């Protein structure tokens, strides 16, 4: 048994790593600059903070979150790609430099072109602006800012053209900025001249050691540190999950109990009345129920049962009524139950159809087996045969579906919770999605996937333990 567990663990580890790698890749590709999002509001909007102070703060967050490290243990890049690019702090600069490298392939010239741009930007930002020429100077500034974000040749040349016209037509710029503009143009010319596109087709392998973003992220995840939410007072993602999880669990627990309590007797009933009209009715109704997507059911229920225009049997959304915090415990529990009834019903009917179909299928098989015939031959009543022998033997395979319960919980929760505004994991995800709060979305995804994997592991062990027919040798 121990050997079996160890073997399963051995198989589990690479799968878990792969899942973590996938979520990591997703997390590094979220749109927007994560460092910028994590900066406190005063550094993002505040005009009273000096640019130098902003840069310092940016560097601090970037370092703390490891964004100034290489991405992975190894990297497969082209020869043209510098292995020090990750030291460029500003992420949009980094991305654009990477794209330029992939087009022109000559890192040194590109860097000197970029330096020229930055220098020009600094100069023009501190430029004095007499009212009559303000627009043109601002236009020049915006053009340089755009140049920092484009990599393709026509897009750059178009903007260089604008700069040239401006530098010739605006008197102030002619004096002060012309040398800068020529510098920019010249350095881009140098980029074009020294193009080494071939370097982009030569692969190189770099080893970065443990000091990389993935390692840092992985260590964080193992300590249950999923980073901090962008909004919501920059609270740790794990705290948010910890607050949401109980509600998903409550819903999950009740709907789990409910669906098994309905489904198993239904399955048994179907088998006892097999091939009679009762069985057929049950099967057909379950089939139809199975075809209703849960959000459709939820919308119908909400329209007709939570609506003052038709029947208002249940409250529409939320967990409790206004002012319920002051009520005595008993009232509050009733109030919770009142609010949770519909969500739990909607949450469970999918499970009912699934479990009872499985149950019926499994029982149909075992009712034809030898031990059932023996039991009948002993003269046991049909009731005893079904409940004591068939059900017992058919319940085991159903329990293996427990592993799939957790992802089903969160997945189902996404819809049900967001319709009924239950503050569980699903609503947390949807809310985070709406506010582009990527750390939360990715934290939930990582945690759910890992938990599921763990669930599969536990179920495998339990099944093997409960059913000696499952060989320990084969994994």
């Amino acid at each position: 048994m121990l050997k079996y567990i160890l073997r399963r663990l051995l198989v589990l580890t690479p799968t878990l790593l792969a899942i973590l790698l996938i979520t990591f890749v997703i997390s590094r590709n979220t749109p927007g600059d994560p460092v910028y999002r994590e900066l406190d509001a005063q550094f993002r909007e505040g005009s009273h903070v000096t640019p130098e102070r902003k840069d310092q703060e940016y560097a601090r967050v970037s370092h703390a979150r490891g964004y100034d490290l290489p991405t992975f243990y190894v990297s497969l890049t082209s020869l043209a790609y510098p292995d020090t690019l990750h030291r460029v702090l500003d992420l949009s600069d980094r991305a654009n430099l990477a794209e330029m490298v992939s087009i022109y392939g000559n890192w040194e010239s590109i860097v000197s072109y970029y330096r020229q741009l930055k220098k020009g930007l600094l100069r023009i930002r501190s430029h004095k602006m007499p009212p009559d020429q303000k627009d043109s100077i601002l236009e020049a500034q915006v053009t340089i800012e755009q140049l920092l974000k484009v990599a393709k040749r026509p897009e750059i040349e178009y903007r260089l053209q604008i700069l040239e016209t401006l530098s010739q037509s605006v008197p102030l710029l002619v004096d002060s900025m012309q040398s800068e503009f020529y510098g920019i143009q010249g350095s881009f010319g140098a980029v074009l001249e020294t193009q080494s596109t071939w370097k982009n087709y030569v692969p190189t392998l770099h080893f970065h050691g443990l000091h990389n973003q993935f390692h840092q992220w992985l260590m964080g995840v193992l300590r249950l540190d999923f980073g901090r939410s962008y909004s919501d007072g920059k609270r740790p993602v794990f705290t948010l999950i910890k607050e949401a999880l109980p509600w998903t669990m409550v819903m999950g627990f009740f709907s789990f109990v409910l669906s098994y309590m309905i489904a198993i007797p239904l399955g048994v009933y179907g088998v006892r009345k097999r091939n009679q009209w009762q069985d057929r009715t049950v099967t057909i109704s379950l089939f139809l129920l199975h075809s209703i997507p849960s959000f459709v059911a939820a919308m119908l229920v909400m329209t007709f049962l939570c609506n003052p225009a038709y029947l208002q049997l249940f409250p529409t959304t939320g967990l409790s009524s206004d002012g319920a915090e002051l009520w005595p415990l008993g009232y509050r529990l009733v109030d919770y139950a009142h609010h949770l009834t519909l969500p739990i019903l909607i949450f469970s009917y999918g499970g009912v159809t699934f479990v009872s179909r499985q149950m019926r299928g499994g029982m149909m098989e075992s009712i034809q087996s030898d031990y059932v015939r023996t039991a009948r031959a002993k003269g046991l009543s049909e009731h005893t045969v079904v409940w004591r022998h068939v059900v017992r033997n058919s319940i085991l395979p159903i329990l293996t579906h427990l592993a799939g319960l957790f992802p089903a919980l969160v997945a189902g929760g996404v819809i049900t919770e967001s319709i009924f505004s239950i503050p569980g994991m699903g609503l947390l995800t949807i809310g985070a999605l709406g506010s582009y709060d990527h750390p939360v979305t990715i934290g939930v995804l990582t945690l759910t996937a890992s938990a599921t994997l763990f669930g599969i592991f536990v179920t495998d062990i339990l099944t093997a333990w409960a059913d000696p027919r499952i060989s320990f040798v084969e994994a």
Partner: protein
Amino acid sequence: MMQQPDNEAELDAVEMDGPILGAPQSFWASARERFRKNQVNMIALRFLLFLVTVALLADFIAYDKPLICKLDGVVEFPLFGDYLSDLGLYKRPVERIHQDWRQAKYDWAIWPLVRYKANQIDYDNQRLTGPFAVQRMSSWKWRHFLGTGRDGRDVLSGLIHGTRIALTIGFIAMGIAGFIGIILGAVAGFWGDERWQLHLGGILFGILGLILGFFYGFQVRSYVLRDALVNGAASFLGQLLLSFLIMIGVTVLFVQFSKLFKRVPILGKRYNVWVDIIISRVIEIKTAIPTILLIITIMSLVEKKNIYFVMVIIGLLGWMGVARFMKGEMLRTRSMAYIEAARSMGLSEVRILFRHAIPNSLTPVLIVLTFGIAGAISLEASLSFLGIGVPDDVVTWGGMLREARSSQSAWWLAVFPGLAIFLTVTALNLVGEGLRDVLDPRLRHE
């Protein structure tokens, strides 16, 4: 017919199994006959055909211009005019561009059944007009038969045009998923963990080739892929496919090259390639991540909403069921006599797999594909219901239900789209069940 048995032994087996009545029936003929026997199957199938028709002819059923009309003494085809000008083949005369087709004085006109486009706003009947409510319009012909949404979009027209989107999503997503799933499942089932052996040189070169193939297919082309994504899903899918082909091509090239080293002592030693273990791990990884959550997270990476992107993602993430089923099929097929025969004739393993084993195991996959389409449609509906991935100006069933969320007294916004989703999913599931009854070889003995 590809299902026709390939050799004598098979032919005998079929005749023994099947009804011994006169001429031997082909597999398809008997399957069709058994499928037709079930009334419910046929109703579901007809309903699906009806949906396909509605999807194909959506513009002819609901449109804001007449099909044919005589206006100012000239016979015109406004709908076809729209089609042609979309294709760039026709330029509408200036005076017709701002033509108010609704108010125009026609000599005569043939209108579609519903006189509204799906996302067209009827300013006279905004704010949720019910199907039975008094509607402000000149004639009953302009009625919103199933009411309108909050901004005055016609519900019936939305349902009709939504059919097109729902079915497209189902078929495209499952097309992608089916392609990937069939190939991976077949490879996993056919070769398993022991049946495919490669010499060490081949394995090493194969891994090297995969890495280099990834470099040339994806790393070098990463910006091409990114730009394609901006241009739309079709170009993105094309470029993605090209990237995969490059990757596979490089790998195959390397493996072929490694054959030169077959006679080198250590490199020439043969080892099993664990195809099944690798593919099963991939499936396990995917199973552990809740699909809807993964899709939602991936969608958050895309800054511009695009319906085709939703289809591609659903397809790329939905092949596991097909693969698992195909693997099971292949486990049966690979022990068949005709495979042995092909092998004894000296055909290459790859040829046997793609020319004999896969074509002969494809039929039952139809079952999973049908259920898969139902699943994809329902998944897309939930995504649009949550407002994820589908642009706001595209009218979908899920999107209409979403509108019902904020306007609870408008029962017609919940009932009709809900019914459309339910009926479509049910019909597909029914056809799937019917196909299972007649096609699944595992059920045939019952």
